[in-house]
């Protein structure tokens, strides 16, 4: 039996790198330091695996790859989507394939922190690493996010309870949760502030006003004195951080909510050190943004139909393309849009030849013309992934796999498309 230490978890954007995994005879027996979701991912990795199929008929890998290449060669306007639950070499090859086929290329950030990217492109973002938060933060604000359910070890490893260089755990940090409802996260912090549905922008703007000394009587259901108290607390801390999530990006206002949050943090830096960080979901969605930006200049929603990259969220983003029924083929890599897109966008996916490269049976595989099973990055193959703060970490191969890594499958498709 081998005990592998320093294993990086390939589930969420925390990329916890302190996991220990017991392996015997090529099987994972147990995990230590893993959250419940991570444990489930490691221990269930061999279950519910996809098989190579074409039109629902089980085939060999070569036939599945050949059919995928044929579909993409013959398509006028293919969509390549996903990328966020695989490693960065595969993401790089997805960009190459999009360029070769004149595809629209999008990653899952368009349905998580795409609005964050849009806002940051407008006004910039004051950023830092999670290590700096652990060592220095004395005020932590969770806004529109629920790490207790979605980033389970984030509070323990980085933001609330860990002892850092200059902060000795929770007693030296004040923590606030701002959200439309009380959740498990609310119970972990010093103060919960309930914001009315769809009024985050109003509260963020009121905080900016309060910082400048304007009187706020009430904002988004929050009494003026509470707004003033939070503004003063933010001004008075030594190192503050806002972690934010889908409560801001998915609700009314979308990128404008983030714009207000980024500008609040920029204002706060007139008084103290204050930072902001999106809580990234898929373990390498940050990497998808990084890789697309290196290679195309743009982080998501990129179209190659003119032979060069064109960026236009709303036009080339996957939910929009599918809802309008514009693409005539799709390759879905390491993502499950049938499970996580609005059903009205999923319908078009069911009506066009769709290729899915995924380790597991997913809901999108149920709609696919071609299914190509792959190795799970970070368990069955190595690679690089980017943590939510942009720090790249090396994923390990824990066990052997009969499946090919995504990068090898994409390489084979590229060979055939280019032939």
């Amino acid at each position, binding site marked *: 039996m081998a005990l592998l230490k320093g294993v990086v978890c390939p589930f969420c954007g925390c990329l916890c790198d302190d996991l220990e995994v017991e392996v015997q005879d090529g099987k994972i027996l147990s995990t230590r330091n893993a959250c419940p979701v991570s444990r489930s991912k490691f221990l269930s990795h061999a279950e519910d695996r996809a098989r190579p199929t074409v039109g629902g008929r089980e085939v060999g890998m070569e036939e599945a790859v050949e059919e995928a290449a044929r579909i993409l060669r013959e398509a006028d306007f293919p969509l390549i989507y996903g990328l966020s639950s695989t490693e960065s070499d595969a993401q790089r090859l997805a960009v190459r394939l999009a360029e070769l086929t004149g595809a629209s290329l999008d990653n899952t950030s368009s349905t998580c922190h795409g609005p964050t990217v849009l806002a940051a492109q407008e006004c910039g973002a004051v950023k830092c690493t999670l290590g700096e938060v652990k060592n220095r933060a004395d005020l932590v604000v969770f806004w529109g996010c629920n790490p207790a359910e979605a980033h389970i070890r984030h509070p323990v490893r980085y933001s609330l309870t860990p002892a850092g260089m200059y902060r000795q755990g929770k007693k030296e940090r004040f923590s606030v949760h701002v959200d*439309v*409802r009380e959740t498990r996260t609310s119970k972990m912090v010093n103060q919960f502030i309930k914001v009315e549905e769809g009024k985050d922008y109003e509260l963020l703007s009121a905080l900016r006003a309060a910082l400048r000394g304007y009187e706020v009587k009430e904002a988004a259901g929050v009494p003026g004195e509470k707004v003033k108290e939070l503004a003063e607390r933010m001004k008075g801390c030594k190192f503050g951080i806002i972690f934010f999530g889908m409560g801001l990006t998915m609700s009314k206002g979308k990128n404008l909510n983030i714009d207000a949050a980024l500008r609040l943090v920029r204002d706060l830096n007139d008084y103290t050190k204050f930072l902001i960080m999106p809580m990234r979901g898929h373990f390498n969605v940050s990497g998808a943004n990084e890789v697309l930006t290196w290679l195309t200049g743009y982080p998501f929603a990129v179209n190659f139909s003119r032979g060069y990259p064109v960026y236009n969220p709303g036009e080339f983003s996957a939910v929009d393309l599918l809802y309008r029924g514009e693409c005539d083929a799709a390759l879905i890599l390491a993502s499950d849009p049938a499970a996580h897109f609005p059903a009205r966008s999923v319908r078009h996916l069911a009506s066009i030849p769709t290729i899915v490269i995924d380790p597991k049976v997913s809901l999108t595989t149920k709609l696919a013309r071609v299914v190509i099973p792959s190795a799970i990055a970070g368990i069955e193959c190595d690679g690089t992934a980017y943590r939510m703060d942009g720090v790249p970490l090396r994923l390990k191969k824990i066990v052997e796999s009969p499946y090919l890594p995504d990068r090898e499958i994409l390489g084979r498709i590229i060979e055939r498309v280019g032939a």
Partner: protein
Amino acid sequence: MEVILNTGRTVDQGVSMERGKTSPEYFEKVAVAFLHPEDAGAVGVGEGQAVRVTTEFGSVVVRCLLGNTERGTIFIPMGPWANSLTSPLTEGTGMPSLKGLKAKIAGAPGEKPTPLEELVKRWRGEVGSA
């Protein structure tokens, strides 16, 4: 009864998703709606009973779980049941509206949570989406 619908992650959703989205556990943990007890009472639905949720984008029956939400709001874990109800309109951002949606809830006596197979049939256009 009119409510506001929010969707998002839960620990149970994440754990069961990693077991497999076709697993009984995923169906049990994700085909649910969290209702405030007073709202549930107002539409005559108890813990574990069927509740129909409808938006302008679709309709599903899910299992009612009490608590974990404010009055006048419901929460459905992210997944195909939630996304039968969400808006594909992105207002030029690429981001669909997955939170803060207007919805209606009603008791669904005698009905069972919408099976995954039916959702797949809806996507394929083999049945209407209610």
